[in-house]
């Protein structure tokens, strides 16, 4: 009985986050030979974008006036998309590297 009572809040919590996590996706962008690939992606609010740096150079994914994800050599970094819109980002170290995320409402 007491075991049940203790389990109950956990179940409720799992149900509470269930619908969100079922829809939220992780989209991977690979960085290789000085380019984001794919350079343009579409996502929904709540999704995560993960960049995997396969170059031997450090990069960033930077939105001017917004967030910046540091991407050291052989490392990855991510950001959770919190609002709809078009995000143009670039690498601050190599501004010729550009990418775009189109975020739609959930």
């Amino acid at each position, binding site marked *: 009985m007491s075991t049940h009572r203790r389990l109950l809040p956990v179940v409720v919590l799992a149900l509470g986050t269930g619908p969100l996590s079922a829809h939220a996706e992780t989209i991977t962008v690979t960085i290789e*030979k*000085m*380019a984001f690939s794919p350079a343009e992606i579409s996502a929904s609010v709540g999704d995560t974008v993960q960049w995997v740096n396969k170059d*031997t*150079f*450090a990069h960033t994914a930077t939105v001017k006036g917004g967030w910046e994800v540091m991407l050291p*050599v052989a490392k990855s970094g991510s950001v959770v998309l919190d609002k709809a819109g078009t995000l143009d980002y670039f*690498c*601050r*170290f*190599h*501004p*010729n*590297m550009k990418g775009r995320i189109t975020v739609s409402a959930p």
Partner: protein
Amino acid sequence: MTTRLHMALAAALILGTAGAAAAADKPTDPQIAHIAYTAGALDVDMAKLAISKSKNKDVVDFANGMVRDHEAVNVQALDLVKKLKVTPEDNATSKALSEASAAEKAKLEKLDGAAFDKAYVANEVAYHKQVNGALETVLIPSAKNAELKSLLETGLKLFQGHEQHAEMVAAGLK
């Protein structure tokens, strides 16, 4: 003989003046490897001077980036020449690059503070522009080995990135 002259003329027409020089005196793969490596190493030297002299965070960050990127690409270049059993060969272009860089370095060593920062960053813009021009018109088209060509193409994107980064830093100094 006529055919070769014709081809050289055609290349000159397609590629312009730099192409004419390249067609007349096309560098070999060992020479190309030497030029590309030298261009990177010279920029690392210049960056180390900036790191020791500058007090501007953007300039020092940029210079640290130059050391990091050019050393990384030169490690790849050395690995490749070892794998291909190519011995980089010194040549007139490498010598000219080294001499021009030494002259520029002597000028920069005499400057301090904001004057140094401005001159260093302006030189970085000009230097990367010059190296990118050589990569595009001479080195990449002349490279015979596919792996060397591919590394030079990545190098071109990297150096173009540096040129734009240097332009951004320069704009911030004004």
